[in-house]
């Protein structure tokens, strides 16, 4: 399987999808609502076999948040990037920690740094930040910390 067959397979699975393949990896924007069901299908699909979530992060665009999932296939040595736009005021996306176990830590990190809620996560609490940080999300673009931050 290469990038083209991956995109072809994505179009078969999801006719409404708009996968894009100009970069190194294929990129597939998805709506957040059906993400959990799609995540399971992408992992278990006989052609794709995206069995490895090797990066889970978030981007603050100031007007919205974008969740970015990098899925890898250890069988085919091919990767797919999933992007899910979230509402910046009430960001919430279903947890995929039951599908890719590694997401459990990654989602806790995104939870503390960006304030994204992950319904379905077994243990959503701070990962690295010290106690008392709940509600302050230091990787949001509008984060202010007058004690520790020197603004440029």
């Amino acid at each position, binding site marked *: 399987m290469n990038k083209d067959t991956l995109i072809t397979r994505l179009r078969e699975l999801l006719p409404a999808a708009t996968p894009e393949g100009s970069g190194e990896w294929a990129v597939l924007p998805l709506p957040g609502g059906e993400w959990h069901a799609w995540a399971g299908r992408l992992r278990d699909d006989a052609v794709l076999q995206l069995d490895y979530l090797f990066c889970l992060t978030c981007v603050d665009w100031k007007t919205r948040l974008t969740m970015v999932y990098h899925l890898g296939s250890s069988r085919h040595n091919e990767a797919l990037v999933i992007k899910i736009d979230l509402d910046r005021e009430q960001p919430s996306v279903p947890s995929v920690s039951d599908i890719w176990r590694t997401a459990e830590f990654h989602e806790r990190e995104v939870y503390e740094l960006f304030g994204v809620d992950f319904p379905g996560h077994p243990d959503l609490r701070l990962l*690295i930040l*010290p106690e008392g940080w709940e509600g302050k999300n*230091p990787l949001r673009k509008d*984060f202010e*910390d007058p004690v*520790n*931050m*020197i*603004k*440029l």
Partner: protein
Amino acid sequence: MLTDDAAIEKQPAGSPPAAGPGSFPGQVHPVPGGGILVSKLDEVINWARSNSLWPLVFGTSCCAIEMMSTASAKYDWSRFGFEVARATPRQADVIIIAGTIVNKMAPVLKRLYDQMAEPKYVIAMGACATSGGPFFYNTYSVVKGADHVIPVDVYIAGCPPRPEALLHAMITLQEKIRSGLTREQIRMEKPDQPTP
């Protein structure tokens, strides 16, 4: 202090010993059957201290890679007396702050420094340990210079500094130790001065 004849023969009578960085601070006065070594005890102690500095195994980011390289065969800091890197602060003399110090690490660094026995020395390696470096602006988590936490003797510029720069800083620290008082001695001699 009596020295053996062989050592005396290398020194022409009356001439000072070969002066250079790291040479023994003293002079040999030849007498029949040997020689008398004249020196100051403080200088001898400082000379001994400067030539046997044991660093603490402490690295918080990429500068630690350069520090490891400095310890390895190509640069080999054991040539200057640094070979015994210690994994416990109780046995270390110098702490090389090799990397970024974040707010969460700062109390750990302070504690390690407090656990080291006097006299103790600190080298701030690289931009992060000196000033926060690339994390100076718009960062919530980085200490803007390790000297906010513990006193620093020698700073090294670079991001990360090359092993040669670290060696230069270590030799500079040795010269600093040889040329003067330790912080401990300064504290004892001038009790009115606030401790650094």
